[in-house]
């Protein structure tokens, strides 16, 4: 009984080490391709469009209601204590530093990361990766590096867009639900929110993009088995990305000013 328990724990630890090692190996291979830059520009452009432009509607929707939710939660206390001058600052500070990058990162992982894992996994299963190698094309250089770059750049840019939309959402919901005028919201926001709050969140966004990219590519390219393997890889990639986002958020919140 105890032997089985320790065997299971040992197997899980070994499995975890293998996955972390695989991700680090992939990171190393990506860095080699970037120093100096040697990757496919057409493929990068295609991924920037697919991962970024097509994510705009869902990101805008998520961000708008995220800003709104911040105000809805605060509205009760704003009315109770008459703290209307704090609404703009509260919404801006929370959205820029924490809620914006975190929620958008998780949303991005669900939409883009899972899609990326499924796509790469299917390419493995249908021998497309072998096909590339048979044509002397390095799959890391041709497929992985463009995806990693696209995800970092696009989550960064989408977070800028999401921040703006979330603040607009917060201002509108504040006007309707908490009787905070737009002018009052703007004064509170512009006087108390600093550039450092914005850069703090954007650095987090870039790191989250990197984490989503590495985990989704790793689990995609190491798929084993058929459709079941692809499903399992997508599941693992989303869980690993979510864990990576939460852990790195914790560390970055401490480390960044």
């Amino acid at each position, binding site marked *: 009984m105890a032997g089985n328990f320790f065997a299971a724990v040992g197997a899980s630890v070994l499995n975890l080490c293998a996955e972390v090692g695989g991700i680090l190996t992939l990171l190393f291979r990506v860095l080699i391709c970037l120093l100096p830059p040697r990757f496919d520009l057409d493929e990068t452009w295609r991924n920037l469009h697919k991962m970024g432009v097509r994510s705009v509607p869902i990101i805008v929707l998520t961000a708008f209601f995220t800003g709104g939710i911040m105000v809805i939660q605060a509205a009760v206390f704003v009315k109770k204590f008459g703290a209307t001058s704090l609404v703009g600052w509260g919404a801006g500070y929370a959205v820029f530093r924490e809620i914006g990058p975190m929620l958008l990162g998780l949303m991005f992982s669900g939409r883009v990361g899972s899609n990326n894992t499924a796509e790469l996994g299917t390419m493995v299963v249908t021998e497309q990766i*072998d*096909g590339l190698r048979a044509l002397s094309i390095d799959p890391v250089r041709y497929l992985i590096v463009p995806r990693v770059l696209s995800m970092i750049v696009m989550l960064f840019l989408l977070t800028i867009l999401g921040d703006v939309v979330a603040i607009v959402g917060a201002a509108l919901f504040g006007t309707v639900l908490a009787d905070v005028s737009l002018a009052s919201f703007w004064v509170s926001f512009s006087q108390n929110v600093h550039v450092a709050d914005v850069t703090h969140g954007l650095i987090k966004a870039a790191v989250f993009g990197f984490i989503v990219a590495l985990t989704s590519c790793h689990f995609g390219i190491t798929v084993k088995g058929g459709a079941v393997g692809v499903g399992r890889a997508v599941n693992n990639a989303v869980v690993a990305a979510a864990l990576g986002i939460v852990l790195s958020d914790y560390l970055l919140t401490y480390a960044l000013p």
Partner: protein
Amino acid sequence: MIHCDGLCLQLTHRPVLADVTWHIEAGSVWGIIGPPASGKSVLAKTLCGLFTPRQGRLIVDGVDLPGLPEPDRVRVRRKMGMLFQNNALFDFLRVLENVAFPLARQNPKMPQDELVARAQERLRAVGLSGSEEKWPSELSGGMKKRVGIARATICNAPVLIYDEPTAGLDPVTTSKIYDLLTGLRQKHASTVIAISSDIPALRHFVDHILFLHQGRIRYCGPESGLEACEDPVVYQFVRGQTEGPL
């Protein structure tokens, strides 16, 4: 052209190829047959350098392939064209782009017009004119095979490997594909290795047969000598008998 001496390969701690010794002369046409999971596709991929054998020597056109690091395998792989079992057509490229892809990669400076013309000519040869703008997902099984053949042969590589070129196809399409492969082979005098489970059709196409069972060679010789082989596994497999070691 290709020399394998005592090739051994393991995948996930399981031996897949065991002591494979095989010599392929330039211009010859070989068929690889054997029961499922006997290592046929793995052997084909090993010849392309997609798997590195644990033991043994693999010399392709005078070059020791396993001894080369991955980036240096380019010059050997350029001498080969391969049709994969699942066709391996790139989902993100249209039919014309799929066919032109190897040519564009090998000749980055080739003008776009010439690339398109060469790809269209090859699509015409496989009877797929008019399908240039289709996506792989819009094609039938037979059409995918033919696009895969067009892509494998567009560079006129001296060695062509076809993994299950007629799997899942009806007899008429099978005959058409073998006619096509025969035409291509006669035109370019290439060395051909074909893997197939359709033994009668394959035997019409090849000069020599390699029979693999559990990663080991059970027969290696002229196609005409297969019937006389006394190995019980080969005997049962070739005759399709239910009684025997398989």
